[in-house]
């Protein structure tokens, strides 16, 4: 269990870089980077949602004329891109950053500066992608930018240039983070934190990183081809040269399907943390939960062509991909049922976090079932590219990923900020989201079954789609309100939320044994872990005694917080110990933390320059200058040691 000494009295000299804007630009602290990810991603979520709101307004009635067809095409493309690459993935990344080191008992990630680099590349990439709006030339080829529509012949404008360049930059960020977290989980676990003791979120994150580092190279290649086609006249997707459009489709979905699990597994992980805490029971079937994660990820590489059932791959391929796709329902089902098993016999506390987690269990299942309906190729011929698909993926993406991430935000906000989010506003947020989300996306099933194709700018009257679309749009507006409430709650609670102790929820894992927010070094002394639920072993021996997840005779836990009696289990009323400044400094504890540096940020900035040069009339000087600048910053960064020599 987590054994960490009560820290020596505070010798408080603020280190430089410790406050102000500079401290954020130069930070290598995984917790700060996590928050940078969080707030950036939430902003993009609002943008993506705003795009969605406009889409829904346009579709409210037949023959809508709110936006032009061209604008509409840019809107849904950017909506998809923003939500997937700028909202959900970075939101997950926020939790990877903030949580993994805390959950495995580490001081930081394996490569703190690479971590900062990843964030800054993400930020600049997302800005480049959205800069397209300024030129009225946002990507307009759909989020999977099918060739040949995306080739210069059919998309001569800047639009798809932004797509290519934006995704290429974002890819660098995601890959860099991927290697970083793989290494972190493998190598930075505290003593005794065996793989099969790791919190399930860390497991989910770990598996996700493999999906990332194995699937992103593929999209990188696909996009590189498109980049060369668009900028240097190669023929990869050039129809007149005999190119085969299915090349893009296969490469894209080879990435695209693993991607959808990249989007949902972290949410699964968060829910697997939240449900046990609020059922006051350990996760049901921990090993199976871990194996199913691995199995889902593995199968995820063998199903990509289920997005292509209408392209005419022939009966054999259709059958194979249909079957492999169905198989994925099994490990996923196991997760659903094990979550139910976790709650079964528990004593459920319906906090906002818990409600969102339960929301995932209920809503993701709906999306999963429609997914299985797609997996039957002949039936999918009637479903594909209709609103039935749109319904499916919003149930899995909003009902799955977003619900899980909201649960995570309410659950971990106190650990990030030391303050609780308002439960009242939280409940409002949940119920409005729950109602709005179903009202938005359930009717889409019917619209789809009634023959409404997706990605249509406007539809005609008396096609039988009007009511469905009215409802969807009203639902979307409810979601806008819900989200607004969430934003307000978040901003207010940061400043004036109720103080949270180390462990406001009575949670089982070691990140709750340290102060909220944690000191930069996380653990005054690296804990030694002897079970899956160390905090429960310590706090409620009578509960956990004799239970396989804990070792007999090791029940006492000392929670590291300045001047607090050991063994104390904090409650939201422990106000004083949360103020940042009561933490003893790293020096006073003789802990060496990485020196803050802005080199990663500069390097990230340099990296984007060649891409911009590419779009800017392929200006060779800019490209070369950028490349050299990048090389220089890279050397400057890599040749300075992480920590002051000691």
């Amino acid at each position, binding site marked *: 269990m987590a054994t960490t000494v009560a820290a020596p009295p505070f010798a408080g000299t603020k280190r430089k870089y410790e406050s102000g804007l500079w401290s954020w630009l130069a930070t290598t602290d995984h917790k700060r980077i996590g928050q940078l990810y969080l707030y950036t991603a939430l902003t993009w979520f609002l943008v993506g949602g705003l795009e969605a709101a406009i889409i829904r307004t346009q579709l409210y009635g037949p023959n809508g004329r709110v936006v032009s067809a061209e604008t509409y095409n840019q809107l849904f493309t950017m909506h998809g891109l923003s939500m997937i690459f700028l909202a959900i993935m970075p939101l997950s990344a926020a939790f990877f950053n903030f949580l993994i080191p805390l959950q495995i008992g580490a*001081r*930081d*990630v*394996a*490569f*703190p*500066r*690479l971590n900062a*680099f990843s964030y800054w590349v993400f930020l600049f990439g997302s800005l480049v992608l959205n800069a397209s709006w300024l030129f009225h030339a946002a990507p307009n080829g759909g989020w999977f930018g099918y060739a040949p529509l995306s080739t210069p012949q059919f998309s001569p404008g800047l639009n798809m240039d932004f797509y290519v360049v934006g995704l290429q930059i974002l890819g*660098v960020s995601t*890959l*860099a983070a*991927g*290697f*970083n977290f*793989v*290494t972190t989980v*493998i*190598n*930075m*676990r*505290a*003593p005794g*934190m065996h793989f099969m003791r790791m919190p399930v979120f860390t497991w989910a994150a770990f598996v996700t990183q493999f999906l990332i*580092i*194995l*699937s*992103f*190279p*593929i999209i*990188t*290649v*696909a996009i*590189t*081809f498109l980049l*060369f086609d668009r900028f*240097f*006249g*190669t*023929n*990869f997707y050039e129809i007149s*040269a*005999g*190119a*085969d459009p299915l*090349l893009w489709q296969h*490469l894209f979905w*080879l990435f695209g399907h693993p991607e959808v699990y990249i989007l949902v597994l972290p949410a699964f992980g968060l829910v697997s943390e939240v449900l046990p805490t609020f059922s006051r029971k350990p996760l049901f079937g921990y090993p199976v939960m871990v194996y199913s994660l691995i199995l889902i990820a593995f199968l995820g590489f063998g199903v990509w062509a289920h997005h292509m059932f209408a392209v005419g791959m022939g009966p054999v391929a259709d059958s194979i991909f249909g079957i492999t796709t169905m198989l994925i329902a099994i490990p996923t089902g196991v997760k659903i049922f094990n979550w139910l098993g976790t709650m079964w016999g528990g004593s459920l506390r319906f906090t906002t976090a818990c409600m969102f987690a339960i929301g995932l269990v209920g809503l993701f299942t709906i999306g999963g079932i429609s997914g299985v309906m797609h997996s039957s190729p002949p039936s999918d011929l009637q479903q594909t590219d209709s609103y039935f698909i749109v319904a499916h993926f919003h149930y899995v993406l909003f009902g799955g990923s977003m619900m899980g991430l909201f649960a995570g935000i309410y659950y971990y906000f106190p650990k990030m900020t030391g303050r609780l989010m308002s439960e009242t506003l939280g409940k409002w947020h949940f119920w409005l989201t729950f109602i709005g989300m179903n009202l938005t996306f359930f009717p889409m099933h019917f619209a789809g079954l009634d023959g409404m194709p997706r990605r249509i700018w406007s539809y005609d009257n008396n096609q039988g789609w009007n009511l469905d679309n009215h409802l969807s749009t009203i639902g979307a507006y409810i979601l806008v309100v819900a989200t607004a409430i969430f934003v307000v709650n978040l901003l207010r609670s940061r400043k004036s939320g109720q103080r949270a102790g180390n462990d406001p929820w009575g949670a089982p894992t070691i990140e709750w044994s340290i102060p909220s927010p944690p000191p930069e070094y996380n653990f005054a002394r*690296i804990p030694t872990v002897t079970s899956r639920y160390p905090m429960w072993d310590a706090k409620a021996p009578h509960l956990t005694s004799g239970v396989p997840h804990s070792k007999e005779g090791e029940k006492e836990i000392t929670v590291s917080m300045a001047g607090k009696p050991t063994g104390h289990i904090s409650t939201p009323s422990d106000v004083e110990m949360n103020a940042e400044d009561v933490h003893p400094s790293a020096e006073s504890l003789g802990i060496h933390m*990485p020196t803050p540096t802005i080199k990663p940020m500069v390097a990230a900035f340099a990296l984007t320059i060649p891409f911009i040069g590419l779009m800017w009339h392929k200006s060779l000087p800019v490209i070369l200058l950028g490349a050299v600048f990048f090389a220089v910053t*890279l*050397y400057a*960064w*890599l*040749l*300075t*040691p*992480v*920590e002051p020599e000691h």
Partner: protein
Amino acid sequence: MASAAVADAHAEHHYTSTGLSSTKIAIWAFIGSECFFFASLISTYLIYKGRSVVGPFPHEAWTNPATGQHFKAILNIPVTSASTFVLLMSSLAMVLAHSAVVRGDRKYSKIWLAMTALLGATFLGFQAYEFTSFVHEGLTIKTNLFGSSFFILTGFHGAHVTAGVLWLMTLLFIDMKRGLGPRDAINVDICALYWHFVDVVWIAIFTLVYLIQ
């Protein structure tokens, strides 16, 4: 991103759960990822094999029906065999450099590092020659599907070699400045792993692209 890992390992002289070096884990993860990168490039080359609507072609001559212009088969096996051998030898030099560093043998570490970089540069020289002569024979990146997929595949491999050469020269530079000792072994080791992987990729390319028709 692997290069970013070189000096960046926070965990290097801290406790690690596996007792293994973090940078080394990262580089292996990176290599695993690179497998997918090159698998995609090679797949594309093979998929587009024989699908070009106009020549020139890799293995057989072609006369342009419109202009009557004649093109001979593009690929030049003897030259490429030579460059393949060069790259193979560079791998040998690399391992010797590494064990020299591990031994703390300043003299030979410098020699072999330099030798590796030199052989790598030679390989690039071969590739430059190959590319220019192909262009003269009428195959550019724009000519046909073969041209596009061939130049991008081998070009990206060449880019990897270039990065490797720069990395080696950096190590050589450090060696000359302050000398690489056993405690730097790990940094040379990961560079070596990268270098050998690039070599291994070429082994696949040489067979799948050049020899098999």
